[in-house]
């Protein structure tokens, strides 16, 4: 029987007698799932839906006719005719015994235990009326262990193994394991004495007792906190979580397996990256620059300066002299109002956002470039995919929760993974093939794979358009250009063909690539040929949304072409330096740290007549601004974010804005009113109402509907035919010469822009800027781990800590983007070209 047949044969139904009633379920279903599906309650303690059943607590026991001993319902599949009893005196005694075993020597620290009130052991003990433990003669207290962002108390640990399993099955790390045997066993890091992991805190979230607690000490009792469901402010996955507040203090973030797209998974940024909201560094009042120094002013003064200055400059130099740059963490409502005020109130059309400035064809121009084939499939495709392809993405570091979604699917469906990257990026579970290509030869490699798929015996039938560009190159020449052998290209093609319908993930390496659009076109063709889909990783929580809202020069909300005054996109900073743009409004962005050639950005901002910034922090950009307006963070306002699959989700206000800070939409609404526009919006939902009425794709969204769960935007022709693009298969010209090393600039697992650097746990986990370099290059340069290296490009030079790693091949380094003092983007040329550097010991 072939594997295929075996899978077909599994889909049979099985009938069992459950507590006297006949029930039918698909073969392979466990007794526990059968019971739950039929409304029969069997108590559990270690069981967790997203994990393979563990079977450690032995509380879910049931009796099966004909068997002497009870069996565990979580790990036992049903078999035909099985007669199961879920409640009996014998079972009750045994179940109570299991708790008695666990309560043996379990400290009665409930009054001081962080988990008190939400402890599952406490609940089960009460529920099952257990009044005593099996006393043992030798209680041994073990001191609590400090694991950096986490803490472990062996005395409270019940060895349910949830932490161990979640770390392996969902996070793919395997940082924890049971060490030792029997009663003296302990949960221990596999990384040595110190826990050195992703610090996603999945272990913390699944611990049923107080054994694993947060390194950020919980300063409230569980019954004192108010939980507000909202969406993570960091990256573009759009994970839902609960903001836990005690009065006006944010005390922790908790996850919930039943809300949002993330199935209770969060990364370190999501779980521990909340300190910035209430950081001492937050701006609480407006500042106005007089001379070289900023002085505090009232909002009244600040707003009138803003309105007057913009009015003045418009009157004198025309609307073209005003530019707006928006950040990608603005909510849809912020972005919508901002562009509306600037377009309608000032008549300006120089409106942009940071990622669009870098790659307009993948942002505002996405639907012009790709039409129906826009590379934004929804996460639902993960379950349906025949295979996964990571192309230029580091799934363990950027948008890490997507990795959490993929792993259980690989576990349960054996979906094969292929990794293609310019660096040696790995993933757990392991890829079928990991191919490292020469940076710049991406499109040649894609063409090679398409060729291998569509020629020779067993060729896949493909439409002529999808294959056309690939035909310009042979598999062999693709191999020569990319450094991936012809044999390997053929094996990749063969594997993708066998599995069918690939889901191709394109990471920041693609988005930031000089040939990013060509790569996405090529991969869209590849997906199309095999009936697959693509997902483009986005950097920030609302990168997709701010583009959808028309925070872009050529497009109005919903990607309608901007009429009349020609769209004046391109390089805002060049036009400031040319003297064409005199005033810049920057909302929720820090281009002096995050745009290419940060040195030139700073020069431009210094040269502008008037720079106004809304920001929660005194960023590099804010320091150069004339007017600094304190803005509220994501937990201090209502609104919506649109994630990287185009799903609109609610963000909810859990705290009052810090000090006098205000949500951006309030600031720009007020500006609109001062400019004489009618701005009737009393709250964010009024704006959402207008968006739902006016923005194509967002029609019909309501607050009440979104409150029940996110909704996918209906982009033009979403889900239509994909592929069929011409793309350029020519490899990038290497620059070489004085700058022989290719630098890939990206985010670290712990840092993503201005928010994370104001979160002390994330600073503790990843303190300063670093450069990843291969052992061979490091050796040649005399660099050791922890040394400081100077990394220099044509545009700038920064000092970074050296990390020697297998991830960087010879001639390629990876530079952390978000160090405050050493911004990686200072190395990037303003024209969007590749980053070439030289490295030396500092």
């Amino acid at each position, binding site marked *: 029987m072939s594997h295929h047949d075996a899978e077909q044969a599994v889909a049979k139904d099985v009938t069992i007698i459950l507590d006297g009633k006949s029930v039918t379920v698909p073969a392979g279903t466990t007794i526990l799932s059968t019971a739950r599906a039929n409304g029969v309650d069997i108590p559990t303690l270690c069981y967790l839906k997203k994990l393979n059943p563990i079977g450690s607590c032995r509380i879910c026991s049931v009796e099966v006719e004909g068997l002497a001993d009870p069996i565990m319902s979580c790990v036992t599949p049903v078999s035909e005719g099985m007669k199961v009893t879920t409640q009996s005196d014998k079972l009750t005694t045994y179940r109570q015994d299991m708790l008695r075993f666990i309560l043996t020597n379990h400290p009665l620290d409930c009054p001081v235990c962080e988990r008190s009130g939400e402890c599952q052991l406490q609940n089960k003990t009460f529920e099952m009326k257990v009044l005593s433990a099996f006393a043992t003669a030798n209680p041994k207290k073990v001191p609590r262990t400090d694991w950096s962002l986490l803490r472990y108390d062996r005395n409270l640990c019940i060895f349910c193994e949830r932490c161990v*399993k979640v770390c392996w099955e969902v996070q793919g790390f395997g940082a924890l394991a*049971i060490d030792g045997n029997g009663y003296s066993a302990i949960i221990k890091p596999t990384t040595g004495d110190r826990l050195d992991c992703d610090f996603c805190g999945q272990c913390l979230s699944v611990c049923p007792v107080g054994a694993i607690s947060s390194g950020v000490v919980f300063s409230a009792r569980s019954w004192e906190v108010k939980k507000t469901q909202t969406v993570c402010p960091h990256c573009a996955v759009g994970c839902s979580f609960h903001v836990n507040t005690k009065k006006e203090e944010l005390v922790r973030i908790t996850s919930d397996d039943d809300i949002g797209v993330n199935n209770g998974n969060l990364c370190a940024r999501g779980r521990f990256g909340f300190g910035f909201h209430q950081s001492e560094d937050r701006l609480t009042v407006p500042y106005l620059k007089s001379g070289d120094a900023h002085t505090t002013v009232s909002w009244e003064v600040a707003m009138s300066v803003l309105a007057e200055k913009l009015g003045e400059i418009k009157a004198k130099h025309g609307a073209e002299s005003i530019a707006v740059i928006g950040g990608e963490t603005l909510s849809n409502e912020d972005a919508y109002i901002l562009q509306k005020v600037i377009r309608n109130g000032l008549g300006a059309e120089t409106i942009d956002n940071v990622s669009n400035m870098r790659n307009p064809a993948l942002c505002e121009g996405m639907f012009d470039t790709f039409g129906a084939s826009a590379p934004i499939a929804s996460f639902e495709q993960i379950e349906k995919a025949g295979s996964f392809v990571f192309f230029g993405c580091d799934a363990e570091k950027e948008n890490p929760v997507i990795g959490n979604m993929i792993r259980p699917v690989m576990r349960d469906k054996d979906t094969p993974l292929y990794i293609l990257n310019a660096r040696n990026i790995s993933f757990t579970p392991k*890829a079928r093939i990991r191919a490292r290509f020469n940076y710049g030869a991406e499109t040649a490699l894609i063409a090679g794979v398409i060729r291998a798929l569509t020629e020779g015996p067993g060729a896949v039938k493909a439409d002529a358009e999808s294959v056309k560009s690939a035909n310009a190159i042979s598999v062999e020449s693709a191999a020569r250009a990319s450094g991936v052998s012809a044999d390997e290209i053929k094996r990749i093609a063969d594997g993708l063909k066998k599995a069918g319908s690939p889901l191709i993930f394109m990471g920041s390496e693609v988005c930031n690539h000089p040939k990013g659009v060509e790569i996405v076109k090529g991969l869209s063709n590849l997906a199309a040929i095999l009936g697959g889909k693509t997902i483009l990783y986005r950097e920030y929580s609302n990168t997709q949304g701010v583009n959808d809202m028309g925070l872009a020069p050529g497009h109005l909300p919903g990607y309608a072409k901007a009429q009349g005054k020609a769209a004046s996109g391109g390089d805002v900073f060049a036009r400031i330096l040319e003297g064409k743009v005199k005033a810049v409004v920057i909302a929720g962005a820090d281009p002096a740290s995050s745009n290419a050639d940060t040195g030139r950005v700073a020069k431009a901002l210094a040269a502008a007549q008037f720079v106004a910034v809304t920001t929660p922090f005194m960023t590099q950009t804010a320091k150069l601004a004339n007017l600094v307006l304190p803005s509220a963070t994501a937990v201090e306002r209502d609104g919506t974010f649109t994630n990287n699959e185009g799903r609109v989700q609610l963000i909810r206000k859990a705290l009052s804005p810090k000090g006098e800070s205000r949500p951006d939409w309030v600031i720009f609404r007020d500006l609109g009113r001062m400019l004489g526009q009618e701005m009737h919006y009393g709250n964010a939902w009024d704006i959402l109402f207008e968006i739902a009425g006016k923005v194509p794709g967002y029609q019909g969204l309501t607050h009440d509907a979104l409150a029940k769960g996110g909704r996918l935007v209906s982009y033009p022709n979403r889900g239509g035919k994909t592929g069929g693009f011409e793309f350029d298969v020519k490899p990038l010209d290497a620059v070489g010469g004085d700058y022989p090393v290719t630098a890939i600039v990206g985010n670290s697992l712990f840092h993503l822009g201005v928010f994370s650097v104001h979160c002390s746990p994330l600073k503790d986990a990843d303190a300063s800027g670093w450069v990843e370099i291969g052992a061979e290059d490091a050796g040649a340069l005399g660099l050791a781990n922890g040394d400081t290296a100077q990394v220099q490009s044509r545009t700038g030079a920064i000092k970074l800590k050296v990390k020697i790693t297998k991830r960087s091949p010879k001639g390629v380094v990876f530079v952390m983007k978000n160090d405050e003092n050493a911004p990686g983007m200072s190395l990037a040329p303003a024209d969007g070209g590749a980053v070439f550097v030289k490295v030396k010991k500092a």
Partner: protein
Amino acid sequence: MKLLFSSWFGDIVDNRGKEPSDYADVRGIKQFPADFGGGRTATAYMGWGGIVLLSEPYDIVELTYEYARALQASSCAKCFPCRTGTKVIEDILLGILEGRGTAEDLSHLARLCDSVSSNSKCGIGQLGPVALEHALKYFAGDFAKYISGERKRSGFQYPWKMTAPCTSACPTGMDIPLYIEYIKDGNPAGSLSTIREASPMACSLGRACFHPCENNCRRANVDQPLAICKLKRFAWDYEDLRDAEKPANPNKHKRPEKVAMIGAGIASLAAAYYLANKGYRVTIFEKLARSGGAIRTGIPHYRVPNEALDREIAYIVSLGVEIKYGVHFGKDETFKSLRDKGYKVIFLGTGGDLSKKMGADGEDAGYDGFYNGIDILKQVKIGTDPVPKRKRVLVVGGGNTAMDCARTFRRLGSEVIIVYRRTEKELPADPHEVYESKEEGVQYMFLEAPTKIIAQNGKISGLECQTMELGEPDASGRRRPVAVKGSEHVIPADCIISAIGQDCDIFYLKEDPNIKITKWDNPVVHPDTLQSDVADVFAGGDCVTGPLTLVMATGQGRRAAQSILQFLEGKTVAISDEQRVENLIAAIGAYDKKEKVSMPGGWKRQDMPIISHDLKVNSFEEVELGYSQTQAMEEAARCMRCYIVGMASVTSKESGEGK
């Protein structure tokens, strides 16, 4: 055998208070290897099946406490009742042992034993308390004496070993439940590293092992045995075929001592792996141009592809092993020449590659169309000369070599008939191989013994055979075939393959008369240490055991490596107490086919995906495709983790006391 007491597998024989001559027989137990070296002897044994007493002196209460302690030390801590329950039991028993016990303790113990054994995750918790319950039940008087303060601790020794029925049946002693659990947990790398602790040959074993483990799998008492063998292949393939790094050898060549191994077969490769990982410099001398021994030459490509074997051996070589090809030991190199070159140890792993004679007239006549099984398999697999096309092939023999020859010639387009002198029931080949051969169209003629090869002009035209019938059982327990007089008849054929067994070619031993030779032409070595009478010469694999299994050879390779290590480190070459307990466990029996296991059945073993029938018969492509990860995890979840602890009570002969 005659024992003082046994409750093994619930069969109670109590001879206490009787004269040894009146002892009732314990039928289930055939031997009790009591010698523990150094004048020590085992008098009692406690395990999952109960208690076995050989003789006085013994101390049941002390043994029970030590056994509970061993259970606690073996507990993986992955379920509540075993982790804590065995600790509570241990503590109560300690109290009794130290004179603090009460009568209530005994009833409390019985209650705890029931709760632990009824609810635990695996054998340690489920089966361990059985022996404790037997102790409480059949030795209540002994406990009463401790509680009343009459008796004090005896201070015997209690060596023990944690094993499992499958593990105990495996010549490598592989921790099978653990490697399967790793697969269940989605961690094939952890699985492979567990496998490698017992054998570096997961690729070959996972494809072509005789798998005695599966014949001792307790899951068979419920439905079907686990696919232990094929799960091993999954663990190997995962590392081999995916983006996974192979573990490096941090000790590579850190030690100056050189070790020579003769024959690049399974035993040498296994021994080389362990010694190289300890930093020793191993050189293997191979007379052929290819490594892999019997796997390379005897197992057809469709079972173990050459490329897969190449990668398996390449990894072992990468750890710091050198293979010198075309070196014929006894001619090109000798014991003396190797010692002169500074080799501190010589390991003989020369296998058995001489075909046994089938005793038919004309088998040495050099007829065209006559082959020895292992020679023709070698020629097909790695030979340069093509094998001429044959129309009708008779394969004489019923073992795995016969199956390999038959299936190979089916692929070469011949009609193939296996000629075997007993019946199908006695076929020694792996039943799976027999099944596959029939699937592929191999025919069988049973109860036929060859007497003469018929040839015309030097070309074979048929085989004269006698019809046999089965008589009395022989030493192997199989019924001996007896010829029917006057039943000679000729089976027409143009090719005859003799595949009835192999002998060892040990001419090189003539050089050193101090190494004794058995009557089957094998070097004599200590059965446990594999050291010969010459201290620096060790031997293992088929050249010691006669043609046996891959798994026996790799197990012996590992055993030899342990002994060689002791020798190189200047220690006494001897087996440990733990290994003695292992032998005791194996002798008493780790698996009870009749045990009624409290587990619902009906969870079917995963089907192995295979290539199409067309490809099977018309090519040498590997037949089995291997499990997908989903299949492997599902199959692994069927494992019941039948871990068990066996413990001996050991006393010194002279004093009756432990040391």
